[in-house]
């Protein structure tokens, strides 16, 4: 087994606008806590609490680089959400996935 199951609930992790904003920021690249906090309106301790919850849910991981902790997106929490979508929407969700994986991005015009 590659990873232990996440301790937290990925659905709760997604149910908060600040945490979705953190995920959006991380989708643009790995970031230390300070850089995430600078881009948001909530306090740094609040950002740290949200990051801990996202980490428990398997949606982000951290690694130490020197004295800094760098956060990045992790797929584990995403898989639980994807399994939920496929369980409810069935093949429609699977078709969407295949379409998304096989569609080349249109060049900007």
């Amino acid at each position, binding site marked *: 087994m590659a990873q232990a*199951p996440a301790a937290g609930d990925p659905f709760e992790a997604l149910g908060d606008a600040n*945490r979705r904003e953190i995920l959006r920021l991380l989708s643009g690249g790995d970031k230390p806590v300070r850089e995430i906090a600078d881009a948001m309106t909530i306090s740094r301790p609040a950002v740290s609490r949200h990051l801990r919850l996202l980490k428990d849910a398997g949606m982000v991981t951290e690694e130490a680089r020197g004295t800094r902790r760098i956060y990045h997106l992790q797929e584990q929490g995403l898989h*639980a959400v994807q399994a939920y979508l*496929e*369980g*409810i929407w*069935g093949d429609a969700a699977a078709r969407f996935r295949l379409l998304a994986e096989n569609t080349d991005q249109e060049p900007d015009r």
Partner: protein
Amino acid sequence: MTAPLQMSFDVACSAEHAFGVWTERIGTWWPSDHTATGQAELVVLQSGIGGRIYERTSDGVEHDWGEVTVWEPPTRLVYLWHLRRDRADATEVEIRFVALDSTATRIEIEHRGWERLGNAAGEWRDRNRAGWQTLLPHYLAAIEKLAATNGKEGSR
């Protein structure tokens, strides 16, 4: 006839929650090594009669190991089960979620149909009994974890 495997235990949540964690939330707790490949990225139980039970690996290959035959949320669920066997060898799992009150549910599991496996029935039943014993703690942990956060404010 080889006797069914029967298990029963109580959980401290509603039948709706117990049923939902077993079905739509299965991907949050089913162990990735309790699968055909032993390294599933995703485990899905599709809702409704005819719903597929399958895993998908990181390279996108899907393995089916079950099919829902009775779908009566939140009280009863039956599915065919052929993890690590051919579909022709499918046994049958029935799970009843008996509401004791709004925060307590008795879960009764019956795993039957071993006689379809002929001479292999006894050995396969024993292996499945061990499988259930390793599986159920994951479900119980998920019930508690997901219930603990239900209805609570997402952030402070």
